[in-house]
């Protein structure tokens, strides 16, 4: 049995905010996904495809209209730290220091620990993302990349069974993004968490993931077939281009995205993705 399982999940949003039967816009339909323990899964899709909706469903922040989501065989009930999440726009609490932001998570999941241990644990996660020097700073004093590290540290500090990441690096410049991707690859190899990451960057998905799923364009997006990335972890960007597994995964992912686009009339974005 899969560790995290999504069974026939559908979700619609009401456009006018009235009755459910009204003019509901189907965002996701019939999503099925089975994720193994310690697997790194990336879900790739264009912006507006419903990626954030999918991760919010797994996080329990919103409820599915149909279907169910099971973690270790049990249906999820609302949000909880065992499905820790790194939000797209970081969502750090601006009135707290880096330390306090991470401590809030440690305190929430390990409230029975002694204060000293909780502080040590907090420091451990802050060091893990190389932010030891910035622990007393507030989010507004940090660069985008550093804020993202804090968000990752907080996500890990929840000690989740599944770490959910919603386009964690999308707001960063290309260089910072590259550094953080490789750092995440290193952290993941060390901690071996189950990760579900949303991204619109195919190369990012291939660098990090064991398995890639594509989400076809909304409305009524659904998941394409799984693409396995056969390359040893941790991977680095420089060696990746020489890996045969990388080339194959890229071809397959792009192929699925293009097939999903056919008949929808907008191919330009995919054409660009195929170009290199």
């Amino acid at each position, binding site marked *: 049995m899969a560790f995290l399982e999504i069974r026939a999940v559908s979700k619609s949003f009401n456009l006018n905010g009235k009755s459910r039967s009204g003019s509901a816009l189907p965002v996701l339909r019939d999503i099925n996904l089975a994720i193994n323990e310690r697997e790194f899964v990336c879900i790739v899709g264009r912006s507006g495809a419903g990626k954030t909706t999918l991760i919010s469903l797994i996080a329990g*922040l919103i409820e599915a209209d149909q279907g169910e989501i099971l973690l270790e065989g049990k249906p999820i009930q*609302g*949000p*909880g730290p065992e499905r820790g*999440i790194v*939000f797209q*726009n970081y969502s750090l*609490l601006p009135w707290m220091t880096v330390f306090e932001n991470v401590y*809030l998570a440690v305190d*929430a999941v390990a409230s029975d620990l002694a204060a000293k241990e909780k502080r040590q644990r907090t420091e451990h996660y802050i060091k893990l993302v190389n932010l030891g020097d910035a622990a007393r700073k507030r989010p507004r004093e940090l660069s985008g990349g550093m804020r993202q590290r804090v968000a990752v540290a907080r996500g890990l500090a929840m000690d989740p069974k599944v770490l959910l990441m919603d386009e964690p690096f999308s707001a960063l410049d290309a260089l910072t993004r590259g550094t953080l991707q490789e750092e995440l690859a290193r952290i993941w190899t060390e901690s071996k968490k189950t990760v579900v990451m949303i991204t619109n960057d195919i190369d990012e998905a291939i660098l990090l993931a064991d398995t890639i799923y594509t989400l076809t364009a909304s409305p009524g997006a659904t998941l394409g077939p799984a693409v396995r990335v056969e390359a040893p972890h941790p991977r680095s960007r420089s060696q990746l281009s020489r890996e045969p597994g990388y080339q194959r995964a890229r071809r397959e992912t792009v192929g699925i995205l293009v097939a999903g686009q056919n008949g929808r009339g907008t191919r330009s974005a995919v054409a660009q993705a195929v170009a290199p």
Partner: protein
Amino acid sequence: MTRRIDFATMVLPLLGIGVMLLIWTMLSTTVARDLPSPMKTWEESKQYILNPFFKDGEMNQGIGRFAFLSLVRVAKGFLLAIVIGTPLGFLLGLSVFFYRTFDPVIQILRPISPLAWLPLGLVIFRQSEPAAIFTIAICAMWPTVINTAVGVRSISPEYLNVGRVLKLSRMKTLRRIIIPGSLPYVFTGYRLSLGLAWLVIVASEMLTGAPGVGGFLWQEYNSLVYSHILLSIITIGLIGFSLDRLMGVVERRFKTA
């Protein structure tokens, strides 16, 4: 660069004050002959200004003493206003039920003038001092109530989602997310409330005849010493301005993000 800043921050405000004094002088020499000119006002007021803390009877004190008495009264009323207004604002912001129940009442009470509240205060408390403080509090409370409620409701759902994922208790969500998240709005409310409290002081002192800047103003009007009305007006304005600046500093201190 620094010279330009000096020009903008020092010279222009002085120019504005100069124009104001000119208009005042012109009015006092033309259409409003009873209005004392700036020079006359200074001549007749300087003993109150140069010796601000003398006391020669209850209603004949230096302007510093009067200002102090008024400030103490305003401080009491303002503190009462925020002690009642802040929790009320949080309740309105947190509970839709509470909001729907009490928002209409608040909207009706809010525009009532201090001149209307004061007699009611006198009826309830039978003494002028508590009536004055009651009037200040009930008039000054609303910006705090409304801003706090708006602050609570405008906390980003992203921050609340952090609390949901961490399964924080209601108390902890309040202490760690809702209160700190709404503080900037709360302090904007405090600043506006303090401004209102100071605005109300004159009316309440006039009607109760309590010693203070407003009471002095009314007494001097009745004694036909018009220059002292102007002295009081200028004092009220300067203190109100300083209070606002002071609260502005406090407010910025609590700005987050």
